[in-house]
């Protein structure tokens, strides 16, 4: 790290740093902890303030499964996340490949079209998109949630950046071998790009899993995905906190598990996405 780290530092200051960071980290994690703590309390203990939930109970989960088709919702959300992420990856890979492997007229303009999406807020396009989906008969379907998200400008820009660092010699060698551009893409480029593709795919899948606005618009009459199911569970007078926390916990579980397993990759993917 920086040089000044090496200089001896008063103990008190170092402790002070730990104190501030400790308090902030706790504040960040506490709601997540409380969510799971409430979900595993016995029905009679839901209102307890004790930090450690004891005795443990799965009653809230059983209740949640009984009241809502939680498994169905999780499955639907998984389908949306996986197909949306895979579709975005494929579309972005092809586009990024075109930008890096050729020089062609209108290249700059086409590239700016992708950058420009940053400036188009969802709000400015949501009504025509809604109308188009209804014409296509895709309202209230999972396909309606997936299709409009398939072109991720972020994905194109990130992969283009990665590909730009790809050694030109490999592309040249492939050409010498008489490979078509299509087989070069799949046999030379993709294997070398695998880590970047994996990181981006995870990022896109998490984003799709947690997406709220678009599904809320497309699926106004149903609760097919877990974010919407959760919403229908909330808000009514006198919430049933145990099952609600259990459902919320299940809605976050896949992403949190993924995070625990692949922490560094996910963090890196998020950082790169912010710093294009």
């Amino acid at each position: 790290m920086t040089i000044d780290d090496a200089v001896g530092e008063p103990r008190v200051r170092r402790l002070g740093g730990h104190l501030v960071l400790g308090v902030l980290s706790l504040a960040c994690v506490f709601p997540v902890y409380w969510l799971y703590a409430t979900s595993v309390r016995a029905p009679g203990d839901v209102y307890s303030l004790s930090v450690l939930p004891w005795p443990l109970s799965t009653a809230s989960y059983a209740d949640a499964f009984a009241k809502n088709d939680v498994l169905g919702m999780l499955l639907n959300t998984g389908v949306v996340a996986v197909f949306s992420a895979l579709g975005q990856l494929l579309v972005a890979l092809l586009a990024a490949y075109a930008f890096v492997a050729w020089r062609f007229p209108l290249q700059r303009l086409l590239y700016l079209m992708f950058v420009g999406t940053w400036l188009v807020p969802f709000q400015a396009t949501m009504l025509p998109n809604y109308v188009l989906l209804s014409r296509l008969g895709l309202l209230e379907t999972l396909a309606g949630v997936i299709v409009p998200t398939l072109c991720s400008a972020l994905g194109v820009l990130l992969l283009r950046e990665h590909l730009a660092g790809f050694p030109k010699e490999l592309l040249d060698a492939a050409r010498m071998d008489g490979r078509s551009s299509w087989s070069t893409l799949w046999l030379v480029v993709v294997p070398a790009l695998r880590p970047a593709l994996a990181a981006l795919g995870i990022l896109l899948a998490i984003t799709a899993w947690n997406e709220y606005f678009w599904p809320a618009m497309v699926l106004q009459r149903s609760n097919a995905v877990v974010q919407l199911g959760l919403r229908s569970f909330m808000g009514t007078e006198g919430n049933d906190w145990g099952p609600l926390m259990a459902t919320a916990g299940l809605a976050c579980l896949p992403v949190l598990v993924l995070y625990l397993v692949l922490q560094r990759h996910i963090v890196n993917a998020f950082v790169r996405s912010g710093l294009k």
Partner: protein
Amino acid sequence: MVSGTFVEVAPPLRAREAGVVPASRESWWTRARRIAPPYLYLTPAVVLLVVWTYQPLAQTFVLSLHSWNLVPGTPMEEVGIANYERLLGTPELGRSVWRTVVVILGMLPFTVVIPVLVALLTRRVRGRAQGVYRALVFAPMLVAPVAGAAVWQWLLDPSAGAVNRVLGTDVNWLNTTGTAQLSIIVITGWHVAGFAVLVVTAGLTGINPDYAAAAQVDGASRSQVTRWITLPLLSPTLAFLVLMTVLLSAQWTFPLIDTLTQGGPVGSTTNIYYLLWEYGFRHHDAGLAAAAGVLFFAGFIVVAALLTRLAERLSHHDD
């Protein structure tokens, strides 16, 4: 973005054909095969972009000049700029814009101040603790917005919620005009702070440590180094965070407002984004919503241009 990094890969055909047919007399088929590949690879992405982003944007402009109730089959009526007049005439617009500004200002501590503090402090911590702090601060980012809304509704519950019981108060946080907006800001801040911390951390690692070392050799204290060297060099990152906050705050708050307050109480959490949603999908007033969308888009561009200009001015520090 650097544009000088392109690699030119002539497709195999070109090399073979060149010897046989002079370039000027290529058959159209050969030519097409030579020129087409990049466009073919771009087609899916560009088609999707046009269909789902640019064409709807143009349609929103058109829609904003019409009166329509969003029901397929019913006629659209051309009304000129009446929607804009109506929009600018409603007191709701001014209020919602003001509330949006409040949200943005309220978000800045969470997206700029706290992240800088955390990033500077974690840099001094060594070893495993550093990673642990970062991982913990980042965790809320992965919680689905609605799940976050649910647990905060539980924490802030007026009678049984942990916050009131620990503080010994009986505030109805989400249903009181004063505290509802504050709650939305804090919850959103909790959600996105971890991402901002990562951005600042990445910005810090990009700073050449020689500057700080040189200043320390000259006898600068640690806080002086932070104040006069690190923070100015970090200014492009900070400008990026401000830009992100300004452009995305209203968007980040949407799931929380929609699930926790529905814009209330008495409209006190209705920001511009939520107002648009209400015009379109509650009142089915497509023309008005489209007009608001167009203004929103124009505002986006102006703000982004100003902030990018500012960021460019600031970034000459590290030449």
